């Protein structure tokens, strides 16, 4: 800063008016207001996402653990083919 700026800033700091004190009940009013304002829902988003991710991971891992053998695959294919050819079989029993 040059000397002009220095003198201006010194003048401003010396004569800048001070804020009036807060009302006596302001702090209590604000604290009451915070109690009426629940924290936003998104504060629960990270834990929910974390739990969902872990659940999804576990689900996928368990799905990978079960691998049908060739005989089971053939059996499933036969069953699907049978169902495909007779759509009535998919209907619930009367």
């Amino acid at each position: 800063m040059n000397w002009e700026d220095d003198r201006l800033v010194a003048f401003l700091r010396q004569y800048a008016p001070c804020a009036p004190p807060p009302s006596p009940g302001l702090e209590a009013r604000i604290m009451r207001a915070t109690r009426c304002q629940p924290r936003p829902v998104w504060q629960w988003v990270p834990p929910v996402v974390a739990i969902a991710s872990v659940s999804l991971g576990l689900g996928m891992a368990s799905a990978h653990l079960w691998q049908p053998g060739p005989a089971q695959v053939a059996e499933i294919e036969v069953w699907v083919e049978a169902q495909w050819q007779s759509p009535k079989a998919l209907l619930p029993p009367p």
Partner: protein
Amino acid sequence: MFVVQAASINPISTQTAASVSPDVALVQRCRQGDPEGFRWLYRRFQPQVRATLYRLCGAEALDDLTQEVFLRVWRGLPRLRQLHMFNTWLYRITLNVAADYRRQCAQKRTQLATLTQTSSDRVAAPDLLHLHYEEVVRQGLETLSFDHRTVLVLHDLESLPQKEISEILRIPVGTVKSRLFHARAALRRYLAAQGVTL
């Protein structure tokens, strides 16, 4: 800026490790929804918030604006990730509240001169010359645009570094310098017109 007075946040400083700033510990406590922690946070930062609001908006709605700032802080704290940036974040909220208020005032065609007229009546000055100069400074600040006034208040009255102001306002440091230059020049012209010799 915001030099921590240990006595002012005694309940916090006794509970935290030496490596953790008391302010950060206090903010962390508030993020977890501790109302008593938030009371300490309010007491800690209220004077600074209030001073900024007063210099930008005057005295009329000061309590309401202060309340609005701290309610926004309360609501927004859980998503504050960089706790050491709390001061910058708080200033940003304060300036947003001030800007919103000034927009509302402009819409209602409220004259800012009448808003802060009461302030000089409420502050007892030791002598008339001091009171006169306070009034001149107050009116001089009002002649500035909100952008220029904000930068001048933050830099010259609240002693924030230009880099921090650029982070608060999300503008380049060069723009801060430019606004500060023009704000000072305008204020200097105003003071000269009022017969004030620096």
